[in-house]
């Protein structure tokens, strides 16, 4: 059999099973009495074993085989669910992931499974002597369980009569010989057949993601060609031409929508690795954390799936490491234990909101201010005049870092500008809401579909820029005489309140001179955190759909633009990071 043909399927399916394993081991840790979870773990492991054996990945098959053997004991109530068991299963999972990756990459499998096999065997042997059950929910035990190394089941420890009774009914099976690591992994008869697989018949096909990408790129080009066609049409008077072009326009819009839908995936793809990560982080930091995920079924463009993981890791890591207080502190303050960290995704209109919420210590605006002044980001005068919400928002300013010590300002400054720039590159925004002593919520807003957005084209000198409509509040044309200067800041009065202005020509260092004696000055009002800023341009060109093309990382860190759009005539307009420009 030519295994190469099946490698793609193997990669996909093993991925699914590894994810299911991870989810279910976590579930088992939370509910050690729920033996149906054990059955699920058993099934995933069994399927993985069969697939791997078929592909000739004996190391994977051997390890899953040994896992099964242990799980079978647990499933039949002959072995308790212990912290040691959970730890061992997670280690097995890591090893399996590594081996599957190696196998899929076509590398030789180099993971050393011998220690794991021995550990599993040890666990299993422990049962025979009547293993000590460590009830996971037992609160008295929990602090000690934060330590590595409590995993070995001591046969001499307080064995429970119930366990003994069950152990007595246990019958040896031929596959559980001590040297069973060498037993061929394909002996199906030795293990019960898995329960009938999901009975849901799905009318779907697996499509290589690159084909979807190609499809979307082609659709994008179709949109560009359509725009060119529409421009040409306006110059020629051929009967029926404009109707035909309009028809093509409708069809290409529909096509685009369909392709976009096809690229959407549940955000669960990203979320699935977090329970394990948060668990490990919490254990490492000695924190007690109850981590909940909601809305994992929310669908989002696959480009976001690829990019959103890193910022979320940042936010979750900060929540566990710095947001959540140590258990003693929480007890002192009468806060509930375990602490809560919530991750939620939901769709509202054309946006997807992802929130990371913790009930930890919150962010102290005064300390953020002090830090920002110290780092020269704002003056003392500004620090005194801004609101707490604005102060907390300073976290996202590039350059705001807590270089000296990670726990300063609840450690929240670290890498937040990176989080924000990543989200902005996706056309999204991130907001923070925090109350000292009560917790912090980060809300990420992302567009449902990414590659195509409605934008306003503006001109500055000879250059054109696109501002996504999502960032724009309104546009105005003001008389030059309406411009005044307050505290060295140029402002206009708009409906009775002062609107600070940002001159794109200066911020973007556009070559050439500003228009001489313009009759009016066009202004694009954008949101910048909590405040509004008027971007001053030379002219408003038109509103149009643009296809976002990413800019190469080779260009360096670009503070003001997030991508480029190809216009109808083949020229490029850079897409402004409106919020950053306004903050400059």
């Amino acid at each position: 059999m030519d295994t190469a043909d099946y490698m793609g399927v193997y990669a996909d399916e093993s991925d699914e099973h590894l994810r299911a394993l991870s989810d279910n081991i976590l579930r088992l840790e939370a509910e050690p009495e729920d033996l149906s979870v054990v059955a699920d773990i058993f099934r995933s492991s069994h399927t993985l074993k069969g697939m791997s054996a078929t592909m000739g990945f004996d190391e994977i098959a051997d390890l899953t085989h040994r896992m099964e053997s242990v799980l079978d004991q647990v499933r039949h109530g002959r072995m308790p669910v212990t912290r040691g068991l959970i730890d061992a299963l997670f280690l097995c999972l890591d090893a399996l992931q590594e081996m599957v990756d190696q196998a899929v990459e076509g590398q030789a499998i180099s993971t050393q499974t011998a220690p794991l096999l021995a550990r599993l065997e040890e666990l299993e042997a422990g049962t025979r002597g009547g293993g000590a059950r460590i009830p996971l929910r037992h609160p008295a035990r929990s602090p000690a369980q934060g330590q590595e190394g409590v995993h070995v089941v001591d046969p001499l420890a307080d064995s429970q009569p119930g366990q003994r009774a069950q152990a007595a009914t246990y019958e040896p099976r031929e596959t559980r010989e001590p040297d069973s690591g060498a037993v061929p992994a394909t002996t199906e008869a030795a293990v019960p057949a898995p329960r009938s697989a999901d009975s849901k018949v799905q009318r779907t096909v697996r499509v290589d993601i690159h084909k979807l990408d190609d499809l979307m790129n082609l659709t994008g080009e179709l949109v560009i060609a359509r725009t060119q066609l529409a421009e040409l049409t306006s110059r020629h008077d051929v009967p029926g031409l404009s109707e035909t072009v309009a028809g093509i326009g409708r069809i290409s819009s529909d096509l685009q929508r369909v392709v976009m839908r096809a690229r959407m995936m549940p955000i669960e793809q990203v979320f699935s690795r977090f329970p394990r990560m948060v668990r490990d982080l919490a254990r490492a930091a000695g924190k007690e954390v109850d981590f909940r995920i909601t809305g994992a079924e929310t669908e989002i463009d696959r480009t976001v799936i690829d990019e959103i993981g890193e910022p979320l890791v940042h936010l979750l890591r900060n929540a566990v490491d710095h947001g959540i207080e140590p258990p003693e502190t929480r007890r002192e303050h009468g806060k509930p234990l375990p602490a809560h960290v919530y991750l939620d995704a939901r769709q509202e209109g054309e946006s997807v909101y992802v929130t990371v919420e913790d009930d930890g210590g919150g962010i102290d605006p005064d300390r953020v201010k002090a830090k920002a002044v110290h780092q020269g980001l704002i003056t003392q005068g500004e620090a005194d005049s801004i609101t707490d919400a604005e102060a907390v928002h300073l976290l996202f300013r590039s350059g705001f870092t807590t270089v000296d010590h990670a726990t300063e300002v609840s450690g929240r400054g670290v890498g937040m500008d990176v989080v924000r720039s990543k989200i902005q590159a996706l056309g999204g925004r991130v907001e923070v809401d925090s109350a000292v002593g009560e917790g912090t919520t980060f809300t990420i807003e992302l567009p449902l579909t990414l590659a195509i957005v409605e934008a306003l084209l503006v001109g500055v000198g000879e250059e054109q820029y696109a501002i996504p409509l999502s960032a724009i509040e309104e546009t105005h044309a003001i008389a030059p005489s309406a411009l005044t200067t307050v505290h060295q800041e140029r402002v206009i009065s708009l409906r009775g309140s002062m609107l600070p202005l940002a001159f794109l020509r200066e911020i973007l260092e556009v070559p050439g001179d500003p228009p001489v004696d313009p009759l009016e000055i066009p202004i694009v009002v954008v949101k910048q955190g909590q405040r509004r800023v008027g971007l001053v341009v030379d002219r408003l060109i038109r509103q149009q759909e643009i296809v976002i093309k990413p800019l190469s990382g080779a260009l360096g860190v670009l503070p003001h633009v997030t991508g480029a759009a190809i216009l109808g005539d083949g020229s490029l307009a850079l897409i402004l990071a409106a919020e950053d420009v306004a903050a400059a």
Partner: protein
Amino acid sequence: MTQPALPEESPLGHREQLVTIRIGAEEFALPVGQAREIVPYRRVTRVPGAAYQFAGVMNLRGDVIPVVEPKRRMGVPEREPDEETCIIVLDAGDHDIGLMVDAVREVVAIDPDCVQPPAGAMAEVPYLVGVVELADRLVGVVDPEAMIQPSGVPASDADGSTARESP
């Protein structure tokens, strides 16, 4: 500085093909194999805040690729593009990068052994990997990869002043 990736010499006596280009008043050569394609000049859009050596980005059949103006780091005055101006598209790992040159002159076949290491002051020029004698003149062989790098500063250091938490 290492030699650009010249193909192995075949038993039949391999000839290496070089394309000669003009940047400012000087003529250079680079291995043809390193150029993905050569396109006539097209509008390059300036990117505010981009690293200094970049003239901007251009539209290459629907892809937006960065374009390097090598004269910036060579200290040669820039000039308005004309009908001779070309952009050499280089394969820079996961993306393409364009190199703006004032003219593309000819493709010549040489014996790779004829490429001499740069000597004297030329050895100090980071993008020069050799010198080759062509008909009546000496031409510097450039490593286009080195030409598109920012001068002197390793890319990782450009923004290394702030400590950031790992991943």
